[in-house]
């Protein structure tokens, strides 16, 4: 059992949770993920670290309430327990020797982008962060990013309620056009990563994306998370989650992410019957 140390609601449907997991925190690196089960009936669901402390033995992650597991998570408070936390899993994101990098964090993906950008800064890369969200309300971790020694922070919202009005691909394209970046990394919804990769491809700027396929064990055993990268089958959990964005088959990824949509609706509806949180 893993104790919840703190929770925080960042917006209507976005939450942050800090959990005691000393063995996991001791080995965590930027870009890696862990698998959790909320309770004895729980599904194994991967989440990427937004932060951790090896010294204090905790990990932190940010999630949007989209289905049953994330709904159950919103019901937990400090002092409650998660049934299982296993990790860290996946290959850490590459940092250092990248030169001038643009890190794009879209929606909840910003939570993953934060430790990645921090690791790149620490490794001597010159980092520009592009932070995107649908609106100001959904923008997360802006203050944390501002505290990093970034070259620049560009905030984008779809509706213009904060920062610049528009999609993250606009400033990314400008950076490419002016030759201001040597590498790019995009973390967010698959559709956003797809368009980021399409944007940089034109300028041949190497671009890494952090994929979030469905997983079960998270250790390479089941193959649920298989993705096509350059026509080759890769497992998101052990070969990734980071892959060359110019080679990923995003259409396939998005199709595979939708396989249980109906089941998820059924399970969440079933759970919501006995629940009055209104989420």
């Amino acid at each position, binding site marked *: 059992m893993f104790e919840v140390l703190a929770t925080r609601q960042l917006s209507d449907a976005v939450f942050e949770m800090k959990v005691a997991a000393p063995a996991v925190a001791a080995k965590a690196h930027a870009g890696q993920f862990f698998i959790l*089960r909320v309770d004895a009936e729980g*599904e194994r669901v991967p989440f990427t670290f937004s932060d951790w402390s090896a010294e204090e033995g905790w990990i932190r992650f940010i999630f949007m309430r989209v289905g049953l597991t994330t709904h159950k998570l919103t019901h937990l408070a400090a002092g409650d327990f998660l*049934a299982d936390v296993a990790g*860290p899993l996946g290959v850490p994101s590459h940092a250092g020797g990248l030169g001038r990098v643009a890190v794009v964090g879209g929606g909840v993906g910003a939570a993953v982008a934060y430790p990645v950008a921090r690791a790149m800064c620490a490794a001597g890369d010159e980092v520009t962060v592009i932070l995107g969200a649908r609106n100001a309300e959904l923008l997360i971790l802006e203050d944390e990013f501002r505290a990093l020694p970034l070259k620049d922070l560009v905030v984008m919202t779809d509706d213009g309620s904060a920062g610049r009005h528009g999609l993250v691909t606009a400033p990314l394209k400008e950076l490419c056009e002016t030759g201001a970046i040597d590498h790019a990394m995009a973390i967010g919804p698959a559709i956003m990563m797809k368009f980021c990769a399409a944007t940089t491809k034109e300028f041949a700027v190497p671009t890494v994306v952090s994929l979030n396929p469905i997983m079960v064990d998270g250790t390479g*055993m089941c193959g649920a998370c*298989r993705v096509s990268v350059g026509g080759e*089958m890769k497992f998101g959990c052990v070969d990734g989650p980071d892959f060359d964005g110019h080679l990923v088959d995003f259409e396939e990824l998005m199709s*595979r992410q939708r396989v249980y949509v109906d089941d998820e609706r059924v399970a969440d509806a079933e759970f919501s019957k006995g629940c009055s949180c209104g989420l």
Partner: protein
Amino acid sequence: MRPVDETPKPRHRPVKGTRIPMRENDPLERIASFTEVGLGYDAAEAHTEAMRCLQCAKPPCVDGCPVHIDIKGFIGKIIEGDECAGVEVLKTRNALPAACGRVCPQEEQCEASCVLQRTGQPIAIGRLERYLGDFDLARVPAERCRPEIAPASGKRVAVVGSGPAGLACAGELAMRGHGVTVFESLHVPGGVLVYGIPEFRLPKALVQAEIDMLAEIGVRIVTDAVVGTTYTIDDLLTAEGFDAAFIGSGAGLPIFSGIPGENLNGVYSSNEFLTRVNLMRAYEFPRSDTPVWRGRTVAVVGGGNVAMDAARTALRLGAAHVMLVYRRAEEEMPARHEEVHHARQEGVEFVMLCSPQEVLGRDGFVTGMRVTRMELGEPDESGRRAPMCVIGSEFDLECDTVIMALGTRANPLLAKAAPDLELDKRGYIVTDADGATNLPGVYAGGDIVTGSATVIRAMGAGKDAARAMDAWLRRS
């Protein structure tokens, strides 16, 4: 140990007769649920079957068993009507008799070596083992058979993986007085016994009960511990203070066929399909949280025990039609005869001598599978006749689910975190006959050494390594 009984026993006179069949649930009824298929022997059936045993002076069956269970000994106790003593005999060699009695391929091992095999009616050793295993588990925990534990050695051993190899190794080391901690990456211990083998063949409560017995003798089990990332082998031997380690992490990575369409929704590896259903109990969805795609028409590709498990599981999830697609002929399927028999009884259609060419789909979901007919040529290196494509014989099978049961390969996760560990070119760990790797104090056994094998072979490897580790620990 109980005191030695000095009174002379009446001489055993074997009773001639055919094998006592094991009662089973009706095929049509049982595919509606995940309850166990085989019902086991009752005391009278077990006694009658045991009475057929010749109690050979030099029993060949024992040599047929990878862990050398004293088969003659435990059957002798059933003959005497002393089940308690029978369990004791059994448990000195095998900590998981209820599991092994169910899933060992006895027909290729102990029963194949039985003298009565010549008559076509070997003793039903597996069923008798199961009978005693179940007899033990039916008792209240305090009365169950506990092996004798040697005085504490003061040494600590880390066992990586809680599947058959790890559990057998852990049990043996604990009996020899060592402090044992088992590290399991999943949230439940048992490895393939819980994620792979279905409930209807091996009830999970039973596996848990056998694992609980290991805990009773002092084995500590840590779940959610991914050795390779949470801990490296080096961490275990230094920071965590273990004196030795055994790696029984299993083979793990599923093999896909590489044909087009394999990433369509509705295509599963058998590992994923069975893990969702067995470990995550997707058959209870939405009472359990994990869903599984419930196909109406399912094609399982492969001919091994795992393929049979997947096909029979699909039926139980409500599939109207399950096909087993295999590129060779039925006689050449590596699955146990019993599994093939059960699958056929339950209505699985055998589509033999057909090889998948492409998974067909629409809007991202499976709609069928294109297969080509095969014919058998000359025997290949495995001794089986090599299948060859019949040109122009392609045809389409209609299905909404495809399950690839094509075996596994080595999982690189652990080895990545132990760069000095010697691996063969396929990524399996290299060991000597005792299970010792090239790293001092690090042993390995089971599928991560041999590639996919059986539960009992992995247990044998775990046990053999434990004996070697015991000697090593006492020397160092």
